C-alpha cells in the first residue's frame, strides 16, 4: 500500500475481518481476512456486484451486526455498538413518515439532548444545505423520493457525525435524480469533508464521488482491490464524459472481469 497514506491516521481500521451468515447448520461465508483503512477526510467507495457483502461490511462498521473474527477499530477504539458518530444513510426510505421534514432532521439532535437555539440553527442550516428550506413543514409522502433522500442526508449531517456510512443511498433512483443528488452530495462533501464510506454497485458513481475505490469481489477470500482516483476537486458533471474517466472505468471493469 501507499506509504504516504499509511502514515496518516486511519479513522476506520479493518484488519483480517471475517463474517459468515449462519443458516441453520450451514455457514455462508461472506468475506474472510478482509482489510481496509479509511483515513480522515477521505471519501472511499466500496464497489462490487450484488451479494458480494459490501452492505454487510457497512452494517458491521455501523455496529448493526457483529463480525465473527478480526479487528475493527474506529479512531483506535473497538466498534461494539451503534453510534451516531458513524451515521448511516440507508438505501431504503428511512425518514420517518409520521414526522414532518423539520422533526425528521431534528430527531438525532433531540435524541442527543441538544436544545434550544443551537438545535434549531443546525436544522435550518442543514435543510438549507440540501435545498429544502421551503419544505420544512411538509410530510414525507408529499415529497419525491429524491427529496426524501435529501432530508435523510440533512438529518444525518445535522447530527455531527465523524463518519458517513452510505449504503447504496441512490440505488433506487432514476438516472436524472441520481445525477443531481451525486452533484449535491459532492458539493456538500467538498465543503465539510466528513470521512465517508459509500457503498455502490455503480462504478461510474464511485469514480465520480470518491478519492479511493475498494473493489470487492464475490469470492469471500479475495482481498479488496484498491484504486486511487486521481481526479481533482471540485468535481463537476462534465467529469463523467472525460476520456481519462472513461478509460479508468473500463480498466477497472476489465480487471474485475479477468479477476487479476
Amino acid at each position, binding site marked *: 500500500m501507499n506509504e504516504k497514506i499509511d502514515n496518516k491516521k486511519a479513522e476506520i481500521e479493518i484488519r483480517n475481518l471475517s463474517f459468515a451468515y449462519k443458516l441453520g447448520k450451514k455457514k455462508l461465508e461472506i468475506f474472510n481476512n478482509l482489510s481496509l483503512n479509511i483515513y480522515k477526510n477521505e471519501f472511499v467507495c466500496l464497489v462490487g456486484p450484488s451479494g458480494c457483502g459490501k452492505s454487510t461490511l457497512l452494517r458491521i462498521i*455501523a455496529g*448493526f451486526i457483529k463480525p465473527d473474527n478480526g479487528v475493527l477499530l474506529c479512531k483506535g477504539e473497538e466498534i461494539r455498538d*451503534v*453510534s*451516531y458518530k*458513524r*451515521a*448511516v444513510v*440507508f438505501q*431504503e*426510505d*428511512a*425518514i*420517518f*413518515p*409520521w*414526522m414532518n421534514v423539520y422533526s425528521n432532521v431534528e*430527531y*438525532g439532535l433531540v*435524541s*442527543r439532548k441538544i436544545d434550544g437555539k443551537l438545535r434549531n440553527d443546525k436544522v435550518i442550516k442543514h435543510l438549507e444545505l440540501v435545498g429544502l428550506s421551503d419544505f420544512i413543514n411538509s*410530510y*414525507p*409522502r408529499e415529497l419525491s423520493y429524491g427529496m426524501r433522500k435529501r432530508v435523510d442526508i440533512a*438529518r*444525518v449531517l445535522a*447530527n455531527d457525525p465523524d463518519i458517513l456510512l452510505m449504503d447504496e443511498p441512490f440505488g433506487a433512483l432514476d438516472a436524472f435524480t441520481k445525477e443531481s443528488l451525486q452533484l449535491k452530495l459532492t458539493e456538500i462533501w467538498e465543503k465539510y469533508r466528513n470521512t465517508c464510506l459509500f457503498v455502490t454497485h455503480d462504478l461510474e458513481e464511485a469514480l465520480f464521488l470518491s478519492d479511493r475505490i475498494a473493489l470487492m469481489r464475490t469470492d469471500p477470500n479475495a482481498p479488496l482491490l484498491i484504486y486511487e482516483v486521481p481526479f481533482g476537486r471540485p468535481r463537476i458533471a462534465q467529469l463523467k464524459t472525460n476520456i481519462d474517466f472513461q478509460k479508468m472505468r473500463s480498466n477497472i471493469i476489465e480487471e474485475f472481469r479477468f479477476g487479476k
Partner: protein
Amino acid sequence: MKFPKSLITIFIIILIWVVITSLKLVDPIFIPGPVNLVDSLLGMSDTLPEATLRSLYMTLSGFGIGTILGVFMGLLMAYSKTFLETMGPTFDFIRPVPIFAMIPLFLLWFGPKVGTQIAFIALGVSVVLGVSTYESIKNIPIVYVRAAFNLGASRTRVYRTIILPCIFPHLVGAIRVAAAASWGLDVAAEFMGSQVGLGYNMIIQQLYLNTGGVIVIVIIYCILAISLDLIIRRIESAATRWTERSAMSHI
C-alpha cells in the same frame, strides 16, 4: 351534495319492514311493527336512560381498561425478552379459551358485581389488543428502528417515537374490532346477574315476550356501537394523516 348510497339501502329495508308488518304478513311476536316499537319505547322510558348510561359506563370502562392493558402487554412482550419468555407461553395457552366460557367462573370467583362485569369486558378486549400490538411491532420496517438507534435515540425513545406511531395505523383495525366486541361482551356481562343496564332490560323484555322491547334495545346498542366506531375513526384519520393510505380513498 351527492345522495349517499347507503341511505337508499336502509330506506328500502325500512320500507319492506313497514309493508310486511302493516299487511300482517308475519306474526308480530316475531317481527313487530313500528307502532309496537314506539309503544315499547314509551313503556320503558322510565328505565331506559339509567340503563343506557349504565351500559355505556360499563362498556367504555371495560373497553378503555382493556385497550390500555392489552397494548401495554403487547409492548412489554416486545420490549422485554424475559417477560416474553416467562409469560408468552401462558398467554398462548389462555388466548384461545372462549371468553364467554369464563362467565360461570367469573361469577363464582368475583360475584355478580359491576367490577366483575367491567373486568370481563376488559379481559376480552385486552386479549385481542395484546396479540395485535405484539404482531404489529414485529412487522415494523426494521430500517426505522435502525435509523433511530443510529441517530442516537435511547430504547425508550425508540418505543415512544418510532414504535408507537408506527403500529398505530395497524392497531386501529384491532381497536375497532375490540370496540365492536366490547358491546357484545357488555350484553354477556349483563346476562350474568345485573340489576340495571340494557342487557338486563333485554332479558326482562324477552321474559314478557315483548319482542318490540328487545328490538328497541338492539337498536340502542346499534346506535351506541356506531357512534363509538365513528369517534374512533375520527381519531384515526386525524392521527394517521401521514400514511399513504389516508391519501388513497379507493383502490
